[in-house]
């Protein structure tokens, strides 16, 4: 059970405090409700580039990192298709420094040309390092537009191309900031060796005078139901063939979300999972295979990805995977379900040991509607039945609902 207090400032900033006096540290997580799904299709990668710019100095403080380092702090950030999330940890007695820095960059950035110019290059190098200069690195640049035709999940957070990043202008940066970065579009969570009353005082002092802003109301186009299998073949100079099968699944808050999550665990999480056991260890069809979900707010994906052994065709590999999916609807036992639930329990307990992870988790669930959802997560997994699973497998893991990418190895 993660206990917390919650309050809201007049400007709409929601603040959550989880006190833990067993640590000398405090952590702060600030979640802005903007991600790649909120981008203009002609300026993709922008939310992520913007995350970089948030470290380029704010209106009154030329450097974000240096003052934080001065007081023993450490920070980082990440951008997903749904959110942009900033987090830090520092010795608890120095927490006011973090309030100063975070509030100033919520108030306004410095918007310097130098920062924009340099971060454009840095992000392009990130694009190359993670997506272009790695074997199989470009899979998601192709799998997303195959699976999504309408929803902005069709592009990756890094963006569709280097050109989208290199073409960004300062006016774009300013417009984005004032459309999305605002107290009424943020959730702040403070955890660690702190007291709620003190956090209230600091929040009011540093964030209280930041004005509310008009948050962009652009509707996100939702993905229609998929009715036929989609296929794509990529030929690349990689050593082995690989297959990626993406099934559409319900978003985070939908009733079936946890059921499908459990299915992905049964199929391909761990050495005892069905796909790994049968297709790697016994039949030797794949060198490795796994299954996982993307965990998005809107329509997400359940992915099965595997490296195919030499002399096995794509057709055979695919049909073996679907054979396993069929078997799952026939002989699924209570014990197997219990195993996956036990795993989910351990994952949750281990996942929330650290004050920083607790802060990020609380912020995420608050965005989803209520921070207290963090405390009912396990119960929700535990209430899934064998019957639920069978129904969900038939509903979602069917070939018409699949986008299949064959990543074909060719000689260089």
């Amino acid at each position, binding site marked *: 059970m993660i206990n917390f207090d919650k309050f809201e400032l007049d400007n709409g900033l929601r603040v959550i405090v989880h006190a833990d006096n*067993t*640590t*000398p540290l405090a952590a702060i997580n600030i979640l802005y409700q903007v991600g790649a799904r909120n981008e203009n299709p002609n300026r993709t990668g922008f939310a992520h580039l913007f995350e970089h710019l948030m470290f380029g100095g704010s*209106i*009154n*403080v030329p450097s974000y*990192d*240096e*003052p934080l*380092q*001065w*007081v*023993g*702090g*450490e920070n980082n950030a990440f951008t997903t298709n749904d959110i942009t999330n900033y987090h830090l*940890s520092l*010795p608890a*007695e*120095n927490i*006011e*420094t973090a309030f*100063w820095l975070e509030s*100033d960059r919520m108030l306004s950035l410095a918007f310097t040309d130098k920062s924009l*110019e*340099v*971060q*454009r*290059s840095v992000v392009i*190098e*990130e694009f*190359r*390092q993670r997506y272009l*200069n*790695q*074997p*199989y690195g470009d899979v998601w640049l192709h799998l997303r537009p195959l699976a999504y035709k309408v929803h902005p999940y069709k592009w990756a957070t890094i963006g569709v191309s280097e050109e989208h990043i290199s073409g960004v202008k300062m006016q774009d940066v300013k417009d984005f900031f004032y459309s999305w970065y605002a107290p009424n579009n943020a959730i702040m969570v403070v955890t660690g060796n702190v007291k709620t009353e003190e956090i209230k005082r600091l929040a009011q*002092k540093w964030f209280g*005078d930041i004005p509310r802003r008009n948050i962009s109301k652009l509707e996100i186009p939702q993905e229609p139901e998929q009715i036929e299998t989609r296929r794509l073949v990529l030929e690349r*100079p*990689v*050593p*082995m063939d690989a297959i990626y099968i993406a099934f559409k699944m319900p978003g985070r808050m939908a009733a079936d979300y946890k059921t499908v999550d459990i299915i992905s665990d049964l199929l391909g999480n*761990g*050495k*005892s999972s069905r796909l790994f056991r049968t297709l*790697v*260890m016994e039949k*030797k069809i794949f*060198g*490795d295979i796994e299954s996982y979900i993307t965990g998005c707010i809107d329509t997400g994906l359940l992915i099965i990805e595997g490296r195919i052994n030499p002399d096995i065709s794509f057709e055979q590999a695919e049909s073996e995977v679907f054979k396993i999916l069929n078997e799952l609807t026939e002989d699924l036992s209570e014990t197997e379900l219990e*195993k996956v639930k*036990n*795993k989910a*329990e*351990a994952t949750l*307990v*281990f996942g929330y*040991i*650290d004050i920083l992870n607790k802060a990020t988790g609380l912020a995420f669930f608050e965005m989803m509607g209520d921070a207290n959802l963090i405390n009912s997560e396990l119960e929700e997994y535990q209430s899934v039945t064998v019957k639920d699973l069978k129904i969900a497998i038939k509903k979602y893991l069917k070939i018409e609902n699949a986008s299949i990418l064959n990543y074909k190895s060719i000689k*260089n």
Partner: protein
Amino acid sequence: MEILNRNKAPDFRLIDKININTPKIYKIHETIPVYVLNAGTEDVIRMEVVFNAGSKFSEIPLVAAFTNMMLNEGTHSRTSKQLAEEFDYYGSYLQLSADRDFAEATLYTLGKHFDKTLDLLTDIILNPSFPDDELSVLLDNKRQRYQIDEQKVKTLSAKKFNEVIFGKEHFYGRNAELSHYNLIGSQQLKDFHKRLYHKNNCNVIISGKITDDVLKRLESNFKVCDKVDFDNSFLLQTTQPSSDKKHYVEKADAVQSSIRIGKPLINKHHEDYAGVQILNTILGGYFGSRLMSNLREDKGFTYGVGSAIASLKDAGYFTTVCEVGAESTNLAITEIYKELSRLIDEKVDNEELGRVKNYMLGEFVRMFDGPFAQSDALRSVIDFDMDEKYFENYLTVLKNITPSDLQNLAGKYFQPDTMYEVVAGKM
């Protein structure tokens, strides 16, 4: 109502004390040291069993890794499938790894399942059967991984760098090659296991919520083999660094190059080590480092650049690491040397040194926060037959080190003309 001055940093306090939790040390079965760190609020346990059984103890480099990986592929009483089912059923997680010095099995489990999962951990460490079928699957799988890794510029530069600074034949400098996978058979692994997974050759570190029951259970269950000959000797070799300073591994289709610049260096046992770590932090050891500020935040050459001082049991080394756009490779190299020279030519100013000291003190607090962080910290000293005094000494050095001390260390260890330079990619 107070008037807010956003231009001025709030008051802060310097960290003057770090709580270093001292482990309780027990001996079970008279010889096995068990380090116990009872900490944290959650009912979780991490148990690490570390053997002196890394790759330096075998002639073929892969023997250690495969012996380690095969532990949970079958025991005399459980098949590979049963082991996987049972570990997963209890929601536990087993991590097997082997490096050049050590091989370990680490169990993460909820406290309520400790009894059951300890049985499994004990079984795989004591009674592995090394079945041929599972071995052949694992060999195929890892061969594939190897081929994929060989396409990454960072793998190519890391391997070359090893060879260059230690020598191709040295047990720290040699790299696994594709052909080595064909030399692995189950008998070698059995022999290696018998020789080194021995009670006189291991440490146990257990952290989390550790009750008396946990310790009793450990004493009665964890009966590590003591009946065979035990020999953890290995062929001592002197390192033979390359006679050429510059090395280039070309990868024609690369859009980025991976650069490593570095050299063999002192390890944890040396009295200059803490000071050199501080110097390295300034150079490339944190986000605000000189290399990051220069190559990333000023010039935009790279997504990330860093440097590290690494300790191996019988050696140490220094290296800078980055991947840069192919067209910027030469410019980036020039800047790295410039930053090395700057540490030698100019004293670090007090503002920068103060910031680094405070940042590192914060890192110290983080290093000892929570049961698993503490056991990581502990592990980093007991691997070197040291104890928590290492950290006390480190803290003393950190608090007292001066710009002149750092300049002297830079002159002694960071001379650009002593560095080896490896580029993999395109330039």
